[in-house]
């Protein structure tokens, strides 16, 4: 069915700079209405991919379809430009314009009629929290504010697809969180969002699917859970937990290792054999474990510790362990 076909499809998409292949045959399929994270180390080809999709670069080989239409090079039609909002990684701004004029300019470029333009610009300024700076010159805004303005510019024509290249770079932690909330909100509006980053944890929380790139290729793609499972079926079952136990807690490791569905993590803060931990020290014992199962399983772990008279100072369930997925995949690629 046309409506359910992927928003973006590429087949063998490649781009060469001189002798170097920045992108060496990319097969990508981004379903509609999802947030798709493109992750990879520096030079993996994320920016090249997004610029190709935005019609700013011609592929050396391969094809791409956006919303079912061929979308490579000169065939990147105006209609597609209307459907795509692109935010480059490093971009400049017209420093000599006021904030509202800046957005108004791009709204005009996209042919928005006057009445809609005015509402859209005001709405976007509100969305990025710059309503009170609307009359300020863009050059007088902070780098992060300019970054947000640049993000808003990509939304000005209400595109169905957003291509965001490292949108979180340069934002403060709070703005990052707001960015994630904004991405979810845009997804709820039905937009398809492709967002690149080399900081995986930044994307873990918000992405429905990720594509992991390395040296111009997609080394893995799909939902995060599936990726984690594929990478290391043994270890990746369950959730990683960081524990902080008050001394005396020597018995804890043996106890935990004996619980069903619980395993000690080899790379926890303290060595599993306890050699690094001095029982006389007042320092709490920190260990990492992996717990399979849902809330019940976690509660059972805490119950067991408490029952054994071990005082639990902290029980921290870790977010999905994306860095490990990422490192595992890219390392495998280098070795293979």
């Amino acid at each position, binding site marked *: 069915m046309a409506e359910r076909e992927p928003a973006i499809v590429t087949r063998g998409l490649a781009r060469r700079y001189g002798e170097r292949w920045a992108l060496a045959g990319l097969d990508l399929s981004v379903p509609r209405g999802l947030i798709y994270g493109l992750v990879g180390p520096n030079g993996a080809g994320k920016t090249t991919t997004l610029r190709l999709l935005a019609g700013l670069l011609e592929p050396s080989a391969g094809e791409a379809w956006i919303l079912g239409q061929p979308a490579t090079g000169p065939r990147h039609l105006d209609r597609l430009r209307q459907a*795509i909002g692109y935010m480059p990684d490093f*971009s400049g701004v017209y420093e000599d314009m006021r904030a509202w004029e800046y957005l108004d300019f*791009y709204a*005009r*470029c996209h042919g928005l009629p006057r009445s809609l333009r005015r509402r*859209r610009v005001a709405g976007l300024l*509100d*969305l990025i929290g710059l309503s009170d700076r609307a009359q300020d010159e863009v050059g007088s805004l902070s780098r992060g504010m300019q970054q947000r303005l640049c993000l808003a510019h990509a939304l000005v024509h209400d595109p169905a697809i957003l291509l965001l290249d490292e949108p979180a770079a340069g934002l403060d932690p709070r703005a990052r969180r707001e960015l994630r909330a904004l991405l979810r909100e845009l997804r709820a509006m039905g937009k398809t969002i492709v967002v690149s980053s080399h900081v995986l944890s930044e994307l873990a929380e918000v992405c429905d699917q990720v594509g992991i790139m390395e040296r111009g290729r997609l080394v893995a793609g799909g939902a995060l859970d599936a990726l984690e499972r594929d990478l290391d079926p043994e270890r990746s079952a369950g959730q990683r937990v960081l524990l902080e136990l008050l001394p005396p807690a020597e018995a804890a490791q043996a106890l935990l290792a004996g619980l069903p569905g619980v395993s000690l993590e080899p790379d926890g803060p303290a060595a599993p054999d306890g050699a690094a931990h001095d029982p006389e020290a007042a320092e709490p014992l920190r260990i990492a474990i992996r717990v399979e199962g849902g809330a019940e399983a976690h509660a059972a772990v805490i119950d067991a510790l408490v029952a054994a008279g071990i005082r639990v100072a902290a029980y921290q369930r870790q977010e999905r362990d994306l860095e490990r997925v990422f490192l595992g995949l890219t390392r495998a690629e280098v070795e293979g």
Partner: protein
Amino acid sequence: MSRAAYEATPPPASARRPRGELNPVLLRELRARFRSARAFSVLTTFLLFASGLAWAVYAREAGGGAASGLPGAAVGGEIGPVVFGAVLLAELLTLLLVAPGLTMAAISGEIERRTYELLLATPLSGWTIVRGKLGAAMAYLLLLASSVLPVASLAFVLGGLGPLDLLRGQAAVLVAGLLMASLGLAASALLQRTERAAILAYLGAAALCLGPLVALWLIDALGLPDPLLRRLAVGVLSRSTPLLSAMVAGREGIFGLIYGAGALRGLDADAGVDAFLLQSLALQTGLAAALCAWAAGRVRPSGRERRWGIGLAGLLLVWLVWLLAVPVDWRLALGLGGG
């Protein structure tokens, strides 16, 4: 980032600008240009220069001309054209100097500011972008040209001038500005670095102004054996430099500066002057259009360049026929007598 006041609305059915809306690039450039203090300091400097020169010429012609032994008012001509010539000369020099500078950062500046990709990600065509950039430059040149009108009208009061002289002069000078601005634009699109574009634009401007004069002199000195070839070469070269067309437009005035008012009186200088001027301005406008079309294709290739190329080639053909049908020698047009 507060709760979205941003509402989802379907994008407009077509990327075309709604009727009656200004080219967004033009609007942006105009805002930037007319907000800068530089725009007005250049304007003031230019006005001081033009009126200073006009006053100096007026003082020489009206007062000390005879006493100093120079041919001046003694020739008995009217001073108006000479003063107007001075204004026109000031205007020409200013425009030749200012125009390439207005556009030499048009494309390269966007690249250096890292705003170029954002512009290219919009549905704007290369032609729209180029028109916006050039339009803003021309708007500023028009402001310069019209700011000088009060000084020029002083020349009218002095007599000896008609509205046609004013029209000829302003047209020649503005077309010169258009050509120079297009040159800057093309240089900016070619080199993508403003400093290099500046060097190329000013070298190109100098070559376009002086090159044909040198070539004409060489043809005179060495001669061309084939008469048709000679006629074509001299015809094209003499009509391509803005220096000659501006001189022809203000011929009595500018020669009056050198030889005194009324120096050209009695010469049958009107023979073919307008033909020469029209042919010159048509050629220079065509050259400017070709440069802009090339720049537009470089900004964003589209099918339009081919059509533009064919159109301009056709116009050039028509122009050559016109040149051969109405061959005015540039010396005659300048009032220097046939060559």
